[in-house]
């Protein structure tokens, strides 16, 4: 499936503890099964716990290799939370949801 920017609508009804939008950037290196899996995991997680408060950007390093240096990307896939600060990096296919949430400092939705 084509991965493009995905946005969610903002609904004030789902106010979470922090009202800040999470800007998330997923770095992949080509459409490998692992990358696909990571994106799927991410999408699911965001819908579940960050409904309406997230923005996912996907960077393919094969297409944009120069970005690997700029953002200090080593491992693939890497999820970088740009906002809110501090910047967090989560590497792996994001299959461990709990750890991702801890990494993003997000309280799991009830």
């Amino acid at each position, binding site marked *: 499936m084509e991965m493009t920017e995905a946005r969610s609508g903002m609904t004030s009804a789902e106010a979470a503890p922090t009202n800040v939008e999470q800007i998330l950037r997923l770095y992949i*290196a080509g459409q490998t099964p*692992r990358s696909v899996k990571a994106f799927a995991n991410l999408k699911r997680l965001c819908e579940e716990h960050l409904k309406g408060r997230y923005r996912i950007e996907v960077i393919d*390093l094969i297409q944009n290799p120069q970005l*690997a240096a700029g953002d*200090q990307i080593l491992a*693939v896939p890497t999820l970088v939370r740009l906002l809110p600060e501090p910047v967090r990096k989560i*590497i792996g*296919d994001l299959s461990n949801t709990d750890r*991702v949430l801890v990494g993003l400092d997000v309280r799991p939705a009830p």
Partner: protein
Amino acid sequence: MANSDTGGHDLRTVTRLPKSPTGIEGFDQITGGGLPTGRASLVCGSAGCGKTLFAMSFLVNGATRFDEPGVFMSFEESADELAKNVASLGFDLSTLIEKKKLVLDHVRVERSEIEETGDYDLEGLFVRLGFAIDSIGARRVVLDTIESLFSGLLNQSILRAELRRLFRWLKDRGVTAVITGERGEGSLTRQGLEEYVSDAVILLDHRVTAQVSTRRLRIVKYRGSPHGTNEYPFLIDEDGMAVLPITSLGLDHAARTERISSGVDRLDTMLGGQGYFRGSTILVSGTAGAGKSSLGAHFVHAACRRGERCLVFLFEESPQQVVRNMRSIGIDLQPWIDRGLLEYHAARPALHGLEMHLSQMYRAIERFQPNVAILDPVSSLLSVAATADVRATLTRLVDLLKTRGITALMTSLSHGRAETEQTDVEISSIVDTWLLLVTLESNGERNRGLYVLKSRGMGHSNQIREFLLTDHGIELVDVYAGSGGVLTGTARVTQQAQERAAEVAQQQEIERKERTLARLRAALEAELASLRAKFEAEQADLATSLEEERERIARLRDDRKSLAQIRRADTSEDRPKRSDERPVDKRRADKR
């Protein structure tokens, strides 16, 4: 054709392993050309021993001298820190980066930032590296120090698998890579990188013994190539890194026959008439104040006058002091310094380790390219190292000098009043010529003497000469070896005066005798003259009286005859003869 296909290799032509030169002085020599091309080499050592510098030198030299751009991937220092650290060594990284000869990439791995959630690989690193290599067409890569990844990432098995993949990837790319690693406790590197990178392994060491630190390099492994296996000292200074290789300890120097003057004429005479062999090593030993440095100064002066370059290594005095001291014996070295023919290097022995001294001297020799080298005094190196070490170092240095045909003069201080035939540094067997400055004590004085203990390859004098430091240089004077023993100093002067006086007296004696002879001759001649005169007088007298006598006899006869005639006597004369002729008639007639 099945026949010709042997996997693409004709086994008869075995190609030698191609090597990439590092440009590091001495290193390319001991490896026979540098690091293996297209392979990864491991450089390991403890903190601060020069791994990063080695790797950076490899890249910078590759970019500037061998037209091979390079990528430096740093896992510890940032690009700015790196640039600053190597700027003091003369590496201008920013210019190289601008010219697209070098790429500096800093990979920051922060444990606190990272959360590991599931499976991953390090493709990001590969992408970065690949991009950097492609952007400038790099042929050389440095990863410094990849072990930082181990502290940043938890999953060791993924890490190790990826490292294996990385080194294969590097090989596929055909770049020559240098990987640095921190020294481990029981292994070469802390994380065991030597498992993956095993084409060449170089170990750097930085140890401190007796308060002096020395840096050493050792090639632990070099697959496919013969290499020196010893530890080589190296140094890092403002010109970068330099390894001191052990030059031909194989005793294979050319033997020269050209002779050069020692600077003291009579010394040249003592050395077979012509002086030292070019490229030989001379040792001058003696007690303090004997004049060893002065001999060295004479040699330097003579060499500079011939237009040759001289390099002097001082271990005890400053150059200014030496120049001033030599002026007092009439040698002015300042003009040679000004003209660039003479250079001084002064360093206290305790300044750094022995290998560092040797490396510094090696460097200086390479740079200055002298014809003559002086080491003054080598015995002071004993204050920083054991005799055996100093001897080994000096052997290497002598070797280096001989290989280059540099004539070397070393001075050595010998202790004690008895000058034994063994110098403190025990190098007497290495040198070709050994001049010994001794003290000759007599009559309450100490005078200096010099003699040639040995001089290989030439006939030399076995006489001691008295060694004088005058204000117009060194003078060698004959000693007097007489019944009173060897005379030097004032005793010699006295003896000389005495001999001169004796000569004068002898001369006077001769003159006196000659005068006597002349006088006798004159007397004799006078006597002869008077005798002759007397004789002539007598002769005249006798002649006169003889004449008178004859006349008297003649007159007497006449008288008798006339008397007889008067008497008509018939003298026997008148009696007629019984022959026809009557001579008497005639006579009678005559008589009438």
